[in-house]
């Protein structure tokens, strides 16, 4: 059975050539990913395994770095670094500056 991320050979339309350079927020997600792996919080294979297990609507509808953020959050919770409650509480508290 073909997993959702396993795209080789599937029919697809034209390639969207226009794209933006990553925004600051996207670069931050990228940096978090690099640093958390370098720190040994999780490894690249755990990261891929987690992306591949995202709910299909997230995998298909969300942009690349949004998917990475979902993945980072799931792994941080899985590894006991953060809890969902802490994250939601922090979000509810509102932005506290960059």
């Amino acid at each position, binding site marked *: *059975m*073909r*997993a959702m991320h*396993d795209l*080789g*050979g599937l029919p697809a339309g034209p390639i969207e050539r226009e794209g933006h350079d990553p925004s600051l927020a996207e670069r931050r997600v990228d940096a978090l990913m690099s640093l958390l792996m370098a720190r040994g919080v999780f*490894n690249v*294979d*755990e990261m*891929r*395994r987690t992306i*591949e297990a995202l709910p299909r609507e997230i995998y298909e509808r969300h942009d690349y770095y949004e998917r990475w953020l979902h993945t980072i959050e799931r792994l941080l919770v899985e590894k006991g670094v953060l809890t969902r409650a802490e994250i939601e509480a922090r979000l509810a508290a509102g932005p506290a500056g960059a």
Partner: protein
Amino acid sequence: MTEPGLRPGMRVRVRERPVEGHVRTPFYIRGRLGRVERLHGRFPDPERRAYGGSGLPPVPLYLVRFRQADLWPDYAGGAADSLLIDLYEHWLEPLGDGHGA
């Protein structure tokens, strides 16, 4: 540590293993016949590392070549067109240094 069991030039068939979870062998290449192009070396097994293991002992990783005409029934490109892909040894069934393409 496992010695690499395959050599460049050997014919191989990509195994069709019933696996769930994280693997790095795409669906489109399973069951296909190719030839070993080179040995990259030994690397930790990502299928075990994905679930928190070390992935050791490391597994031999090969670059394997396939003819595009063998992969896609409607392939309309050049007859010489090929595809190379990195595959781990436990996914490859050796068929020997056969004759023919």
